[in-house]
């Protein structure tokens, strides 16, 4: 290892771990000690990364308050140093961190809230793709509808939450007092996507969530309707399937519909 490389390793170690070995290679300034000057870099590192997490998770910040959020943010920075060249991706691991780390894992509302914010952030700058227009559906003859395969827009993603994080998110967004955090008997099934440039989410009924997930696996429309029929009212399954499809198309959540192979 070159001397330059060794020095950079020591410098980085000094910032990440608090080790002071590098100070032996740094000069005092005319007005200040080397320890204080190196401290500028140490402090900037933590505060810049916590700020990045705060920018990505405004409502989690609002929910926790400044002090608790900062404490959590610094714990995240210590546990998961950035390996990304773009600060945009630094907080991607936050939901997982909150789900797996004491004391945050004892409050599952936190990882759920972070996961919802992450999904909305990811939808915001997800890849561009065409959206299916309702008029395009008229081009498919009735006899091939059973074979139609639906392709979600790249911004669309599903998220299951174990808590009432969606209601908490909504209250915080509207500057209202959030409801108490509550575990749910049945998971809250969300669809998150981008409509034009705006990230959106809505809750899906159990059968609509199932249909979306299976549609994303390229299961054809006819089979999706058969699957819907197992939930309730078999005779109305095709109409319900068409209704869900209509909703996805009008909200710009699909990028393509094709007649299969």
């Amino acid at each position, binding site marked *: 290892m070159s001397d330059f490389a060794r020095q950079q390793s020591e410098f980085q170690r000094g*910032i990440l771990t608090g080790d002071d070995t590098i100070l032996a*290679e*740094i000069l005092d300034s005319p007005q200040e000690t080397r320890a204080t000057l190196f401290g500028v870099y140490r402090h*900037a590192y933590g505060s*810049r990364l916590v700020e990045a997490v705060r920018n990505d998770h405004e409502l989690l910040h609002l929910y926790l308050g400044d002090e608790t959020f900062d404490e959590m943010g610094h714990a995240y920075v210590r546990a998961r140093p*950035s390996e990304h060249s773009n600060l945009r991706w630094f907080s991607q691991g936050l939901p997982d961190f909150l789900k797996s780390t004491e004391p945050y894992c004892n409050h599952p509302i936190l990882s759920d809230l972070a996961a919802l914010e992450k999904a909305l952030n990811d939808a915001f700058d997800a890849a*561009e793709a065409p959206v299916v227009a309702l008029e395009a559906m008229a081009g498919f003859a009735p006899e091939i509808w059973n074979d139609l395969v639906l392709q979600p827009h790249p*911004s669309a993603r599903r998220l299951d939450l174990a808590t009432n994080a969606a209601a908490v998110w909504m209250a915080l967004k509207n500057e209202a007092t959030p409801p108490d955090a509550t575990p749910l008997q049945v998971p809250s099934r969300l669809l998150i996507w981008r409509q034009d440039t705006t990230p959106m989410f809505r809750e899906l009924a159990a059968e609509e969530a199932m249909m979306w997930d299976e549609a994303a696996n390229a299961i054809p429309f006819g089979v999706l309707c058969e699957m819907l029929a197992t939930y309730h009212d078999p005779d109305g399954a095709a109409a319900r399937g068409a209704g869900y499809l209509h909703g996805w198309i009008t909200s710009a959540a699909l990028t393509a519909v094709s007649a299969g192979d």
Partner: protein
Amino acid sequence: MNVASRLPDCPAATIAGRAMQSVKPPFLGFGLGLRAQHYDEILSGNPPIDWFEIISENYMLPGGRPLRTLDRICERYPVVMHGVSLSIASTAPPNFEYLQNLKDLAQRAQPKWISDHLCWTGVHGKNLHDLLPIPYTEEALDHVVSRVQLVQDFLGRALVLENVSTYLQFNNSEMTEWEFLSELSRRSGCWLLFDINNVYVSAFNHGYDPLTFLNAIPADRVVQFHMAGHSHMGTHIIDTHDHPVCEDVWDLYVAALQRFGRVSTMIERDDNIPPLDELLLEVNRTRELAAKVLPAGKLAE
């Protein structure tokens, strides 16, 4: 990585010793750093700003509003790309995925030039997301020259590199920062982004006269000025970019105009971002001072 070793038909000495010969980027006038807070006002009002500098990483994204907005800005204004993660002075292997993303963005935005900083941001797969200082040694110079040459070859264009604000100096430095920058530019062919605020900050922090720095930089290599604000901590100054440009830095701008002549200049605000009108006042001041300091007709050439 030794580029020459991958090109067996080219004499290694020729490859390693060359400087990229490139046409000096054009004078763009007086610009501003593009920030999301001003998107709507810029697109609806077409404010009188000659050009915008974008933070490259803010647009190295799959899609959505940032890139759509960038496309619209690029239709109306000249743009330059300014990165913070090139980490040109890092001793870690180059990040070719980052470089490819940078190249793809340049293909989209068609910037007048691409700049980043003379610094490193991390080693061992980590990124500290800061502009970290280097020792000014022959070893570091050789390393950075070879990295600049590699990046310029990869991008197919000359880089523009900026002097960063530093808070400390290493005891093994063998030359001054201005000697390092001058030699780097001469040997690699990169152009220089002269950050006037950063010179002021570093000069205060290390106890030298900013004019010594300014007067030692080769005038023909400077293609851009940055103007920004900082936070004075008493014993040291931190380059926070969250305040208006201070009067001392405006004075240094006048000295820079006298030495370097007509140079594309922009106001850089990254935090505590005020309304666009407030920043336009600073942009106008850069323009007015240039008109006052430069010989008659020089600005319009």
